[in-house]
Structure formats: C-alpha cells, structure tokens
C-alpha cells in the first residue's frame, strides 16, 4: 500500500472523525476563524473601497494598500500579533482581518471606478439621487469585481488560518504543525490535503455565490475568465 495507503488508513480511522482533535471539530474551527476575519474585513474594506471608487478619489492610496498588503509577511504578522495580544483567537482574527482588507479594498475601489461614466450620466438624468445611484446602478454593475475581491480575501484567509496553528490556534493547520513537530508524515500529508480541499471549496463556493449575485443583464457581458483587479497570494 505504501505511503498513500497509510494516508488512506488515517482518513478511514474513526478516531480521527470525533473529539476535539477530530476532522469535524477542526473544520468548524478553521471555517469559524476564517469567516469571522473575512466578515470583519469586509465591513471595514468594502464601504471604504466603494465610497473611494464612487468618487474616484485617492486612487493611489487604494493601489498602494494592495501593494503593501502583498508585502506583509503573514507569518510575521501572526507572530507579532501573538506577542502583542497573547494567546487566543483574538490575535489570530486580528491578523487575518488585516490580511483580508487589501484585496477587498482594492477590488471594490476598481470595481466602482470602472463603472461606465455614460451609465452614471444616464442614472443621473433619470433622476437618481446619489445614494440610490450607488446602490441600484453602480453596485450591481460592480458585483463581479467586488466579489472577486471577497473571493481572493477568503482564499487567502483560509490559507493563512493554517499558520494560526503555530500560535496554538485550531483548524486544519493543527495537523500540519503537529505532523511536522512529531515527524508524522501521514498526519502532515492528511492535514495538507484537508487544507487544500478547504481552500478550493472556498474558491468554488464563492464563485458560485458570485454567479448568483451578478445581475442577469450583465452576465452576458462577462469574459469567460473571472476577472480580478489584482493578484494576491499570502501564506
């Protein structure tokens, strides 16, 4: 059976499917940490990006935030947050939120900025007030890019949440960090598979959500490749 056989036996062992170190519990932890961080990040980043993009102001700021965000070593940020705030989920959620903000801010800025000026003029001519115009005309047109930002952030946060195991966090990263520490290659490999699957599932489910949220009228205009304003990769 070899190595992959031992991985298969690890997954089929019922002991790994229950208890505090079981797969279901670790999945809940991983998703919870990630979801909290993305949600808090979205509450901060999206309004700022949308407002700045709507007025087309501070474009350099929005772009520079994405550059700086990319330069932040997630590993260092996590460890420093741990030193400042101590053990616990707060340190983890704090650093994951910091990493979640740049992609969403930049993408939502670009999304609103790229709305066709003719469409804005038409909306104004039809008598839309500013707020209604943003909510009913510009935002629906901006959904694909805004959601691309959310998707990028979410995948990145799920990835970085793996590192959280290093500072005693839960989640699937636990198996990888413990596997490395105990030189248990089977556990290490199984944990890595789980993390990779979770990241892909995040990407696919948010791509599905995006498809639902995009208004039918502009679905036809979309290029086959899902657009992103910027590329991000952390951890």
């Amino acid at each position, binding site marked *: 059976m070899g*190595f992959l056989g031992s991985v298969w036996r690890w997954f089929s062992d019922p002991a790994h499917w229950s208890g505090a170190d079981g797969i279901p519990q670790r999945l809940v932890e991983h998703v919870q940490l990630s979801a909290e961080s993305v949600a808090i990040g979205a509450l901060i980043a999206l309004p700022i990006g949308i407002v700045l993009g709507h007025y087309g102001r501070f474009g350099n700021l929005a772009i520079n935030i994405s*550059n*700086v965000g*990319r*330069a*932040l*070593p*997630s*590993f*260092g*940020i996590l*460890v*420093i947050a*741990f*030193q400042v705030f101590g053990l616990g989920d707060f340190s983890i959620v704090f650093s994951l939120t910091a990493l979640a903000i740049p992609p969403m801010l930049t993408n939502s800025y670009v999304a609103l900025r790229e709305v066709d000026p003719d469409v804005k003029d038409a909306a104004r001519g039809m008598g839309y007030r500013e707020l209604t115009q943003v909510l009913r005309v510009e935002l629906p047109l901006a959904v694909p890019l805004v959601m691309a930002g959310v998707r990028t952030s979410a*995948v990145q946060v*799920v*990835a*970085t949440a*793996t*590192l959280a195991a*290093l*500072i005693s966090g839960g989640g699937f*990263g636990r198996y*990888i*960090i413990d*596997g*490395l520490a105990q030189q248990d*290659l089977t556990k*290490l*490999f199984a*944990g*890595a*598979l789980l*993390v*990779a699957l979770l*990241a*892909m599932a*995040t*990407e696919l489910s948010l791509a599905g959500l995006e498809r639902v949220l995009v208004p039918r009228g502009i679905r036809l205009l979309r290029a*086959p*490749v899902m657009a992103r304003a*910027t*590329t*991000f*990769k*952390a*951890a």
Partner: protein
Amino acid sequence: MPTGIFLTFDPWINWGWLSSHVPLFEDALQQHITLTAIAILGGLVLSLPLGVAAHRWRAFRSPVLAVSEIFYTIPSLALFALLIPYTGLTVVTAEIGLIGYSLLILVRNVMVGLEAVPPDVIDAANGMGYRPLARLLRIELPLALPAIIAGIRIATVTTIGLVTVTALIGLGGLGQLILEGFIENFHTPLVVATVLSIALALVADLSLAGLQRVVVPWARNT
C-alpha cells in the same frame, strides 16, 4: 510591589543585541534573496513558453488558466506539506512551490500582454514580411513587456512574503529569525526580520518599477 512584569519586560527591539548580531540578519537576508531570485527566474523561464503557447493555440488557454487558478488556491504551507513525504525538508520542496506560484502569476501576465498587442500592429508586421518567430521576438514580446514586468513585480513581492513560510520546513531566510524569535519568545529577531521582509519587498518593487521606466519608457502607468 508587583514589579515582576516590568522586570521581565522584553523591549520590541534590543539594540545592543541587534548590533552584535548583524551577520545573522545578513545571512538570513542573503538566503531570502537567493530563494526569491531562483523562484522568479525559474518562473520566468517556464512562463514565457507556456504563455506564448497559450496565446498562439487558443485551445490551451482555458486549461492553462483553469489549472493555474486551482493550483494557486492551494495554501503554500499545505503544498510544502504535500511535497515533504517525497522531496523532504529541502530547497527542492521550497522551490517547487515558490516557482509554481510565481509561474502562475507570470503566465497570466504574459498572456494578457500578448493579447493587448493591437491587431493593426500585427498586420503591419505581417505586411513588412515578418515571419511568426521574428514577429513574436521583435514586435509582440517587446510590446507585451509592460504587462510582463508588472507580473514580475507582483510575483517578486508575493514570493518574498511566501519565503518566510518556508521557515517551517527548515529554510525561510528572514522567516527563520521570525520562527526562532517566536520559539524563544524574544522580540528583537522577529520584529526586525518582519520589518526587513517588508522593506525588502518594497525595495524590490521600487527597483523593478525603476527598471520598468528604463526598459519600457512608453508605458508609464502600469
């Protein structure tokens, strides 16, 4: 008097220790730059033919993009962990991942750059009697250069961040000092290494932006 907390307080940066341990940071920085350079050069060498092929033969386009999109979502730590049973705690493991990620960023930008070449220019080149290979090398690739360099900038900054994670598989450059500072609960190396890593990324980005101005002076805003 509860003075215990003050007695054990570890300053964020212990300048005395730092000044006597400069070589430690120099070595880490050097390893960091080497790991990054291999990843970017390797990614560039592989992405140029792939990007050109995907541009030339349309059938390649969607598979290349789909595969890269999926591979790109795999967290780096997970990828290293998946490779360790086969390639061990080695530079090979680290570079497979680092080259892979930079390759994905670069392939996309090579394709985007080639696609942005105006059809009129291609027509003109054809009319002037350029053969496909000469047209690619002398017309299309130079015009795609702004997008390619933009890709190199993103890949470089991204890779510098990712290299810190390889500390967990025994490499890491500056990441090694972050990990050691964390394990020994000693602030100076981890704070200084994190700041150096950010600084390295920003310096690399700025110098590539400078290179961009020299090499493609016609494209100022990419």
